[in-house]
């Protein structure tokens, strides 16, 4: 009985926070539009089998190069594949790769940034020098080489994108740690004898994480664009529906079938645009100071 009541208070507290978040967030109209586009794209990813009527990637040599019609809203490609189905299923691939790559990259970045900022000294030097390497060298090319050499699978693509993108998160979090670790509440935790791990992840991290969250939405967009770029260059798994591979295929038929390029690219644009808009909205929410200028 008592426990149930606690749960309800927690729920109302959560609702209250969501409400206050939304009240601030909706002030940025573009961010609200971005949110709804992104929600729509997530629905497409989840409901792909329900909203398509041809299996993705199924060839039908009888109907190649069909322009958009009601039965093939995005037209068909050189092998008669229904581009609408493939593009809708491609949403799953892009979102999965984007979220996983950005997620792994964020985990690495948080770990490195926290250790670097908290301990300082030699560890900090070594980690920051390593991250600088990735900020200077052409990372898209490095990801491309990794996937080309290790094999064009989804796992390798996710791994390669994560490997080249963690330094941005690490440096953001490190800067946060540097300023927060000098504050009184961290000092208090140290005085009462909390372990370093506790201080880093339970005391500092919750107040330091906001820029990382804002950055994460941009990182998802970057990861999706990187994956599409790799697939476009032919370094993608051909057995998985992917917008990048569709655009690679379209390249050979730009003269005859503009629709092969138009629709997958439009999906990519909408996805990345919505993620960038949501990132802007989150930024306004966490840094209201910037908005006032």
């Amino acid at each position, binding site marked *: 009985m008592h426990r149930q009541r606690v749960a309800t208070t927690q729920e109302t507290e959560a609702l209250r926070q969501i409400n206050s978040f939304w009240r601030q967030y909706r002030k940025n109209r*573009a961010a609200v539009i971005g949110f709804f586009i992104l929600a729509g794209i997530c629905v497409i990813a989840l409901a792909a089998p329900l909203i398509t009527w041809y299996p993705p990637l199924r060839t039908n040599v009888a109907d190649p190069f069909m322009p958009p019609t009601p039965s093939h809203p995005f037209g068909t490609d050189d092998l008669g594949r229904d581009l609408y189905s493939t593009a809708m299923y491609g949403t799953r691939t892009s979102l999965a790769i984007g979220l996983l790559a950005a997620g792994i990259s964020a985990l690495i970045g948080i770990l490195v940034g926290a250790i670097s900022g908290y301990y300082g000294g030699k560890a900090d030097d070594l980690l920051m*020098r390593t991250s*600088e*390497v990735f*900020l*200077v*060298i*052409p*990372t*898209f*090319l*490095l990801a*491309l*080489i*990794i996937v*080309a*050499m*290790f*094999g064009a699978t989804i796992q390798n693509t996710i791994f390669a994108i994560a490997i080249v993108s963690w330094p941005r998160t690490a440096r953001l979090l490190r800067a946060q740690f540097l300023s927060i670790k000098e504050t009184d509440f961290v000092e208090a935790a140290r005085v009462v004898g909390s372990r370093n791990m506790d201080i880093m992840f339970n005391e500092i991290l919750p107040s330091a994480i906001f820029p990382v969250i804002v950055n994460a939405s941009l990182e998802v*967009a970057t990861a999706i*664009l990187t994956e*599409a*770029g790799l697939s*476009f*260059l*032919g*370094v993608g798994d051909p057995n998985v529906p992917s917008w990048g591979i569709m*655009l690679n295929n*379209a*390249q050979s038929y*730009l*003269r005859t079938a*503009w629709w092969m*390029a*138009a629709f*997958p*690219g439009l999906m*990519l*644009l909408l996805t*990345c*645009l919505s*993620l*960038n*808009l949501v990132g802007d909205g989150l930024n306004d929410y966490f840094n209201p100071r910037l908005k006032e*200028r």
Partner: protein
Amino acid sequence: MTSIARIFARRILQAIPLLFVVITINFVIIHMAPGDPTYTLLGESATPEFVQAMRARFGLDQPLYLQYFYYVSRVIQGDLGFSLLRSQSVSSLILERLPATLILIFTAMAISTSVGIFLGVTASRKPYSASDNIATAAALFGVSTPIFWLGQLFLILFAIYAGLLPTSGMRDLRAQFTGFDLVLDVARHLILPAITLAAFHLGFITRLTRASMLEVLGQDYMTTARSKGLDERAVVYKHGLRNALLPVTTYVGLSMGLLFGGAILTETVFSWPGMGTLLYDSLRLRDYPALLGIFIFISVMVIIADLVVDILYGVLDPRIRSS
């Protein structure tokens, strides 16, 4: 030693470890990738006898640390390997393609920097006005649009349907242009790829200039300049922009890596005969020595560009020179 020479020396010393890291990354990739590294370096078509001979010649039968040593010393001497598929050394393959890529990158950079700074300044003069919103929206589209798709759209619209510009390549191979006609011909071929490559950076530079200008416009010396009765345009461009440009310069310098990445995709769309199409062909042919060579070469170029910008920056900004 003068202060500029000191900056110069210090930055070169900092760049050297970076070069080693790049070479090491390459070495690690070669040895960690599935399959025999000899085949990776020679290509899958190599015969067993040839592989054996090459193993001995390149020291691939030696312990790993010696191999690493050999590898580093070869790369430092400019030997990026040999492409058996094309019977040509990788460095000569790359050097053949380098001019086309540089033309593309520098043109794109010139477009994105000049237009981006102009849009950014315009947007910052009246924040949240219509012109600001348009510039901000354009910037947002710039960073969200896949560059190769933008290229495909331009190609379909302006080259295929409107027929205004050539669809591919760097010059008209049927008409043997020379002299100024050749320059014009290359320029015509360059327009679409350069605008495509510039679009992405345009977005970043616009947003950065706008933010930086907003910061500067609120400073006291701007009020001083205005109270002296200077023309508003002089205030914004001479006093404001000059100070707001520093972060933009840094970004332009640091964006060489991004530009090369973008150039690879752009060249592939427009069959622009630079390193990007070389890379694309090498991917399709599984020409690993060429792939790895291109990676090292572009990394070195980017590191050098970064170095040059940093030194220039030290020369231009007295605050950095003195620190």
